[in-house]
């Protein structure tokens, strides 16, 4: 079976499953706090949402190569607290001194469970198992010939419970995630495949929260639905040839969260010398399927 058939089959199966769906809910809510779907770091909630597309131009890497990517990701709730996600990207890679190559990156999927949602404390937590599958993309653009399993934890915390004297800080929220990569092969061709520790955070200041929870400062559309944020994400090699090496990016940007879609844009800055140099950018269009289709594919498959 070719990979495009595999992708098409998986997508159609998910769509068929989705059409059997149950009721509404979802979104990244914990009490009055709305957590947007962030671009770089994993979200701490299960949802019925679609990112299509995510377009990124990365900074030049340490070897001088640069790349562009076009990705999609779909998240679907099976029950109100259990969700699956999957996606894939297409990549243009231009190594320094070599011709450009293009092709699909690895197909990835995840199974996530919503551990808790604490409304009064605006806290939310999730555990999951994510996988990036080998032989599902073109090795020349960096797709692996091995599968990687990554147990994940993610959390979110809004600061709406701060005292009145600190009310201007209430719109702040932090989300974060941590995972460890377990590759199913320790070596590929002439390179080793290390275990990696991945960690990332998003620091948000929600103008929407400020406007409707703290003080009506007169913001009008589109500013009253904007969330300025800074995302950071790092990967540290734990063993083999990558032990102790860290790569990562810092990504300041803005997310505009509308009624049915959100749009995000961030600048990509290398955080370490080995990550690369210069800067890149990423934009994302993100659909809230639970709002677009509350009676069908926007509902969990089982339960309300």
């Amino acid at each position: 079976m070719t990979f495009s058939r595999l992708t098409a089959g998986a997508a159609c199966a998910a769509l068929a499953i989705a059409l059997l769906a149950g009721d509404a809910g979802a979104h990244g809510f914990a009490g009055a706090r709305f957590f947007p779907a962030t671009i770089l770091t994993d979200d701490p909630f299960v949802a019925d949402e679609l990112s299509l597309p995510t377009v990124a131009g990365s900074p030049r890497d340490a070897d001088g190569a640069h790349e562009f990517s076009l990705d999609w990701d779909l998240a679907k709730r099976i029950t109100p607290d259990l969700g699956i996600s999957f996606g894939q990207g297409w990549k243009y890679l231009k190594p320094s001194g070599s011709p450009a190559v293009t092709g699909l990156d690895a197909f990835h999927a995840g199974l996530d469970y919503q551990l808790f949602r604490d409304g009064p404390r605006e806290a939310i937590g999730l555990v999951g198992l994510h996988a990036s599958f080998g032989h599902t993309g073109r090795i020349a653009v960096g797709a692996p010939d091995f599968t990687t399993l990554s147990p994940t934890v993610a959390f979110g915390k809004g600061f709406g419970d701060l005292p009145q004297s600190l009310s201007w800080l209430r719109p702040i929220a932090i989300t974060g995630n941590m995972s460890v990569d377990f590759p199913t092969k320790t070596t590929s061709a002439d390179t080793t495949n290390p275990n990696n520790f991945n960690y990332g955070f998003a620091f948000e200041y929600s103008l929407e929260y400020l406007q409707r929870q703290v003080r009506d400062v007169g913001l009008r559309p589109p500013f009253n639905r904007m969330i300025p944020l800074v995302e950071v994400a790092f990967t540290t090699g734990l063993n083999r040839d990558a032990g102790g090496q860290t790569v990562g990016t810092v990504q300041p940007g803005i997310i505009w969260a509308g009624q049915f879609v959100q749009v995000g844009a961030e600048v990509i800055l290398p955080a370490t010398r080995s990550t690369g140099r210069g800067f890149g950018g990423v934009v994302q269009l993100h659909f809230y399927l639970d709002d677009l289709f509350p009676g069908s594919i926007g509902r969990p498959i089982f339960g309300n």
Partner: protein
Amino acid sequence: MRWVLFGLIIALGAGEASAHAFLDHAVPPVGATVAASPSTLQLFFSEPIEPSFSGVAVATAGGQPVTTGAAAADPNNPAALVLPLPQLKPGRYRVRWHVVSVDTHRTEGSFEFSVGQ
């Protein structure tokens, strides 16, 4: 393939869209200080709401509940709730609201306003 899939999703779900109801604005405004006690509290949302599944409560800054009238829909605006208020003494008040939009999504929030301070 991706666009075909999304086209399928759009085609199969078209026409049923609604959304979470966010508070758009309030009278008295969120965080504002008003000179005199308002006779009503008005909440305006981004989506039409189901009044029978929605509610508003007012309390003093110390947490003492304020006895109000029943929250009711605004007959001229399906996205608004109106809460009759008693004569409020000068001070700070906290409003807690929850609403269910017409597509059954529930949202909630709270804010403060002050009278005569």
